[in-house]
């Protein structure tokens, strides 16, 4: 089977500048005396995700999970290496990914669709399903800036999963929303699985990854530490986490 996502030996460097100049005057005055530091957020990552696979990615805060997701989504470019994806990619990376506050929910759905390369007509057909799924009701015609955070996420999720994506990238948003909505999300994920879609899910939840994913990966300080069966990977990850916590506690005492 052909891989849906190919990550070929990529690294990502962020060049951060402490106290960057905010005006041209400052930039000229501080010429040559700028403090810049390089952060390698990801190092030599290679990963093939077969089409139809549900892949769970875990790791500590700051391990580079979200950055990897952004690279695959095309928001950032890798410093070195290549990323290839095959098929329509839909990403849900943050609360209300890609919504414009001044536009209504409905207008945002069209705008989101446009970003995925979907025509207005296609989105009109999907609209009812999206409104139904999100449970937003009449608020669909109100500007999204008045939405609650739950409504934001629900609408974002409804768009992401109802545009029949071939690749879906999700960053720990499933945990938001009430239980009923979470249940709906899981059902939708299973439907996606039947349609042969590929899922890349970033989560801290061991139970979610065990329940949903076929393969799991563990990112540790920008390196891919382990890839394989979800149970095995999550066991090792949890063991490692417990160990480091022990070390911290012992050191404190």
């Amino acid at each position, binding site marked *: 089977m052909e891989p849906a996502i190919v990550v070929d030996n990529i690294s990502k460097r962020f060049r951060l500048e402490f106290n960057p100049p905010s005006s041209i005057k400052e930039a000229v005055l501080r010429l040559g005396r700028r403090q810049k530091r390089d952060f390698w957020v990801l190092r030599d990552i290679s990963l093939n995700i077969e089409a139809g696979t549900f892949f769970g990615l875990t790791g500590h805060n700051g391990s580079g999970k979200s950055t990897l997701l952004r690279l695959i*989504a095309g*928001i950032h470019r890798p410093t070195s290496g290549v990323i290839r994806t095959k098929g329509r990619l839909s*990403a849900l990376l943050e609360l209300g990914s890609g919504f414009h506050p*001044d536009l209504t929910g409905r207008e945002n759905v069209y705008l989101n669709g446009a970003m995925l*390369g979907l025509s207005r007509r296609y989105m009109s057909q999907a609209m009812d399903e999206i409104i139904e799924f999100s449970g937003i009701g009449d608020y669909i015609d109100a500007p999204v800036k008045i939405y609650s955070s739950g409504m934001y996420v629900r609408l974002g999720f409804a768009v992401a999963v109802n545009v029949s994506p071939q690749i879906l990238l999700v960053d720990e948003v499933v945990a938001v929303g009430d239980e009923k909505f979470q249940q709906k999300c899981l059902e939708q994920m299973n439907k996606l699985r039947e349609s042969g879609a590929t899922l890349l899910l970033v989560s801290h939840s061991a139970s979610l990854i065990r329940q949903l994913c076929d393969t799991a990966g563990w990112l540790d300080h920008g390196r891919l530490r382990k890839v394989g069966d979800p149970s095995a990977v999550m066991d090792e990850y949890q063991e490692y986490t417990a160990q480091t916590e022990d070390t911290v506690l012992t050191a404190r005492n």
Partner: protein
Amino acid sequence: MADISAKLTPAVRTSVTLIVNFAKRETKTLYKRSILGWLWSLIRPLSTVLIYSLVFGVIYRAAPPEILNCKTEPCKAESFALYLFSGLVIWNLFTAVVTGSMQWLKGVNELRKKVYFPTETAILGGAVSVFLQSLLEILVLAAIMIILGNISWTFVYLLWALVLAAMFGLGIGFVVSIFNARYRDIEYLMGILLNIAFFLVPIVFVPDMVPEEAYGLPVKALMNLNPITTIVGISHDAVYFLNTPSIYDMITSSAWAGAAFAVGLMYFRRRSMQISEEP
């Protein structure tokens, strides 16, 4: 419409859909919460015409440029205000695109950190929306000219001049919007530069009034080098003098506008990726 879009490549289709969406958004939110709404698009340029024709036409008594092939006797369209208006539509579109570009990029900056989309579509969409406002302006201009009996088929050249002004403005807008994302000084600087540039283009004066040389500089030649001067000249010819613009002017200004647009877009595409990575 659907048939055309089916023939385009997916990337182009995405860009076109996005440009349409951004243009709609810009048009929809522009005069939100205002009573007169899009009428402001007409009131603003008309007020400028009024002020300048008062100062230059009435106080300084600048003679309106003579229309040689005027159709009425005496020539009713021969007025300083109309000469001014026919140049001002070009200038207004040009500045709206340049200053707008910086705002349009700022407007999608947060969005761009969350989803990937070709960022230039936000600027192109904004440009489409201000272009449509310019069309409103030229409708008024056309109506006045029809009433005064000073209209001819040369008027269509004005549309081409508007396209060139927008393209030239986009070329500059693409570059300065990237600069502005880093240093907000650019916004203020551009405001001043555009104010100065306005008086370097024959809009409130007639090219014949400009001396060949001043302070040892060939000022007239320099003025004519400016592509905006040429584009404004095309507009004057098309709307006010009712002459067919010279082929030479059409070609050089098109080349300038096309080159500026292409270079600006290339630069923008290379740098816009980095903008979205900045905290």
